[in-house]
């Protein structure tokens, strides 16, 4: 998938653990893992909003478009 989820990078920058982020966002650790591993097919605006709030960042900091060959 050409959309890359850079959640790990932002979490490292903010020094936040998966458990803490999952709790702040209100999603399970399993769903957060789906996001981090790039298995997710879609992301709700409400989830994006909660992640941006928790990590104090913009959607563009988390999502990236990379063209595939």
């Amino acid at each position, binding site marked *: 998938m050409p959309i890359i989820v850079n959640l790990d990078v932002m979490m490292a920058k903010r020094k936040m653990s998966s458990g803490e982020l999952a709790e702040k966002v209100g*999603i399970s650790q399993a*769903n*957060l893992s*789906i*996001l981090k591993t790039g*298995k*997710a*097919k*879609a*992301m*709700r605006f409400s*989830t994006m909003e909660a992640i941006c709030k928790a990590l104090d960042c913009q959607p563009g900091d988390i999502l990236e478009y990379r063209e595939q060959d």
Partner: protein
Amino acid sequence: MWNGEKSISLSKLCILLFMCLLVVTVAFAPWLTRWFLDFSRAELKGTEPFFLATIYAGFVPAAYLLYSLLRLLRRIEAEQVFTTENVERLRLISWSCFAGAGISFVSVFYYFPWVFVAVAAAFMGLIVRVVKNMVAQAVALQNEVDYTV
């Protein structure tokens, strides 16, 4: 009170009845064929081996179809409805119908009324195929929902 569980049990019972009917038909095929040839007014002398060949050849897709239906119902009972395994099972059921239609169609050369069985089986196969396409789309939607965070 009638519910989904009882409905599945009824379907399973019907499949088991059809399985019994199939076994009885195959076990008594020579006797049934002779009885039919004696009973029929059509000129069918010498066609007994062909009738037996059709019945024995038709047994394979019919048995596989009934077995697949039973497996499908067991999965539905376990609440595993929109899965790729069920799509594959429906595809095999559809092909079993087409195989039965093919066998019946070949049998038309010695007994024309087999054409009605062939058309009915092919039509049934077509319906199952459309249902399979629909379930495949439902599986794709289910996957999308499962991977939406």
